[in-house]
């Protein structure tokens, strides 16, 4: 399929392109809440550049960046994240705004924030999280690219629920400098777009070594094609109707070109517990710094003794954040650290080894989520572990830092269904090729095409 980015760059835009777009977004945002900070000052001369948004946990100099948290209200980063700097410097993109998300990325459905984003297809459904606004914005805007971030599925899930392409690169290929941390050994900045070709363009702009992020050290990206598709039985067993039968039809089509094999793996399905253990342990250290006096929300009572001051200020965290800070701190406690944190890093090793072995032979394919898009009113009733179970497909590649891509493959009751494809470390390009091939026989549907020319 043709790249929307290239199409946009080729067409002449009217002088008021951006002011019209801003007005359209403002109108839709009242219902879908996908943008948290809108740049309404893009100069008319810059209309040749394609609009890009970033998830609200990616710092943009001078624009309020809150990571969906009240603790960061009013924070104006004094610097651009490396990915933002690279997008701006490429000359082809204009910064349009920041997109809504679960507080600090803590959520599967985008609901853990003050005003949650809603699904682009129907606002009574969840947008998916945690890069909720990024996926909704992509499904809303005809010409646009979203820089998003995934820790355990935060790109795949909302992309699948909004019928767009969500790409999560290999850990360590895109700099995290300027990303407000959730879990540093799991966080990956990626791209959400309306086609695989566009996601690839975005990835090529933002990837590459950065002295400002020590862990960003992968330089060579491969494009090693695979002929085999693997299904992991223990994971597939978790898929419910109508996902199961729709996904079956996708496999039938893919079966024409690929050899599909279902295999068993007892360790991969055990990824969720170690994932949450590591994520929460790291998150609980990252969130220690939000104390209401250096940036963001300013707690006024500086005459209070520091421990009280911190405790009062930190009351502004949302429930899920508090839960994860407490759990993460518990897990790190010296007396239980071996039992949880240390053990989880070992299980992670085992998962990585096992997945490497499989991915050498072919891709792993699955639905992105085990269930059909839930309505908001139903999703809020889920308990924490029921929520975590939604991540059954997205967590393994995220725990192992494997590149993966989500793409729409069907529509059910007017809502999109997404599949997820995983490949080896640093074989990111192979994912775009696979999805581009799929797009040749697939018709994307969108409810809105804001900014259409």
């Amino acid at each position, binding site marked *: 399929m043709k790249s929307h980015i290239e199409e946009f760059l080729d067409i002449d835009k009217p002088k008021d392109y951006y002011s019209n777009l801003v007005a359209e977004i403002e109108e839709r945002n009242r219902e879908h809440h996908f943008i948290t900070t809108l740049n309404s000052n893009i100069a008319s001369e810059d209309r040749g550049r394609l609009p890009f948004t970033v998830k609200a946990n990616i710092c943009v100099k001078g624009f309020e960046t809150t990571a969906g948290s009240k603790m*960061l209200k009013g924070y104006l980063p004094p610097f651009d*994240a490396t990915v933002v700097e690279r997008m701006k410097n490429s000359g082809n993109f204009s910064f349009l705004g920041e997109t809504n998300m679960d507080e600090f990325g803590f959520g599967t459905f985008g609901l853990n924030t003050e005003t949650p984003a809603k699904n682009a297809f129907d606002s009574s459904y969840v947008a998916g999280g945690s890069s909720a606004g990024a996926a909704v914005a992509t499904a809303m805007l005809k010409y646009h690219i979203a820089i998003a971030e995934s820790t355990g599925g935060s790109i795949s899930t909302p992309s699948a629920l909004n019928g767009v392409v969500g790409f999560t690169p290999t850990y360590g290929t895109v700099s995290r400098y300027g990303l407000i*941390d959730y879990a540093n050994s799991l966080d990956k900045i990626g791209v959400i777009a309306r086609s695989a070709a566009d996601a690839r363009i975005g990835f090529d702009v933002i990837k590459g070594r950065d002295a400002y992020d*020590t862990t960003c050290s992968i330089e060579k990206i491969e494009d090693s094609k695979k002929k085999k598709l693997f299904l992991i039985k223990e994971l597939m067993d978790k898929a419910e109707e109508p996902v199961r039968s729709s996904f079956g039809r996708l496999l039938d089509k893919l079966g024409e070109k690929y050899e599909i094999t279902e295999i068993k793996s007892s360790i991969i399905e055990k990824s969720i517990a170690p994932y949450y253990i590591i994520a929460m342990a790291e998150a609980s250290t990252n969130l*220690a710094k939000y104390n209401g006096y250096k940036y963001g929300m300013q707690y006024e009572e500086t005459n209070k003794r520091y421990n009280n001051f911190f405790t009062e200020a930190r009351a502004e965290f949302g429930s899920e954040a508090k839960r994860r800070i407490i759990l993460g701190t518990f897990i790190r406690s010296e007396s239980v650290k071996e039992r949880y944190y240390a053990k989880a890093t070992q299980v992670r090793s085992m998962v990585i080894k096992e997945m490497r072995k499989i991915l050498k032979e072919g891709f792993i394919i699955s639905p992105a989520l085990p269930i059909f898009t839930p309505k908001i009113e139903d999703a809020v009733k889920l308990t924490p572990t029921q929520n975590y179970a939604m991540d059954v497909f997205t967590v393994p590649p995220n725990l192992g830092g494997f590149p993966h891509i989500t793409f729409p493959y069907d529509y059910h009751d007017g809502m999109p269904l997404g599949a997820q494809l995983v490949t080896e470390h640093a074989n990111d390009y192979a994912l775009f090729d696979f999805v581009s091939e799929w797009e040749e026989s697939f018709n994307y549907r969108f409810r809105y095409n804001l900014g259409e020319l």
Partner: protein
Amino acid sequence: MKIGLEVHVALPTKSKLFCSCSMEESEYPNQNICPICMGFPGSKPMLNETAVKSALGIANALHCEINRKISFVRKVYFYPDLPKCYQITQMEESIGKEGYLEIENKKIRIRRVQIEEDPAQIVRQGMLTLLDFNRSGTPLVEIVTEPDINTEEELREFIANLRSILYYLGVDINREMKADLNISLAETRVEIKNVTGIKSLIEATRFEVERQSEAIKNNEKIERETRGYNEKSRATESMREKETDEEYGYIYEPDLATFDISKMKYVEPVYITNVSDELGRGSGVNPKTIKEITMLNRDALAMIYKFKERYNMKSILHGIQRFEKYSNKNMEAEDAVKIERLVRLIEEGKDISREAAEKIIAGEEVNIQYSEVTEKEIEKLVEKFVAENPEILEEYKKNKKTINLIIKEISYKNNMHPKDVATAANSVLNRSS
């Protein structure tokens, strides 16, 4: 008595440990700051290579087992000066472990040498807490000993030797040496936090030893606690509750990685006790004197090496001391000529007056020629002086040092060797009194 130490030392780098902000002193607060050393959301650490090299040199000098792979951990605690509310420090994969430092007849075992970041500086203004982040991110090395120090004397010697080792590695610890002490006289271990400077360290130890001895004598229970040292009252006092390891909840620092330092180069150490023993052997000079002069003076040591084949050790040391006494600046390599002039005069048995020394230091050549006189003639001069100043005799009876006044006066005025004058004065005065 068992004393263990945790000594914190700032490493000599141009920039901070994890960012490129300058380490130079700043006239104003919050000038050398950036998102990294202020712990802003989204910032990440970048490890300073020079800091690691420097710490590696220290670990090696302390005979540590050098860890070929190093990594960092997060230590979480809440305090207003800690930018991220976790400190990046080291644990298992620290730069060095299990070493020792030698003091007289003893080895003080080193448990660990680790690299860590310094927090911001707190300035109290009335009720306000004011923060200056210029200091935040200063590269520190923490040297943790086993509780092997048993006396105040050993503590002094440990600090002196450590200071010398660090000095020769290019690390000056006089200015801002911070230490935590743990002292146990009986079973209970008491920690004393944040003692700044060597003097305070000794005083805090002395106070705490007395406090605990007193308690034991009175059959009181010694609490296991953390105390602070108050420089003004020169006393240790009970501190706020401190977190324990359970609360610190150390985890691997995932924003950094595991660094392989097996090929890293570092500066070799100078153990001044060994060097002094070597230099002192057969020189007629006590090695301790050499150690005293050189332990914090690399230029003096260089001069000794330069001249030791040509001159007496005693004369060399004397020359160096003269130079240092009358020169207002530190010795440099170019000063070798001047020092040699001093040493030569000393070897010739000449006494160097202040005036002569200053001339030499200014770069002039100075010849000291004494008048040729007999002992009798000098004695006459002394007798005359005493006759003219009778009170001197009374003075001398009270204080024998009064003789120096006479020696100085006569030798200087008459261009005579002070030694000869001294001999004469002694016999005259002893006869007269």
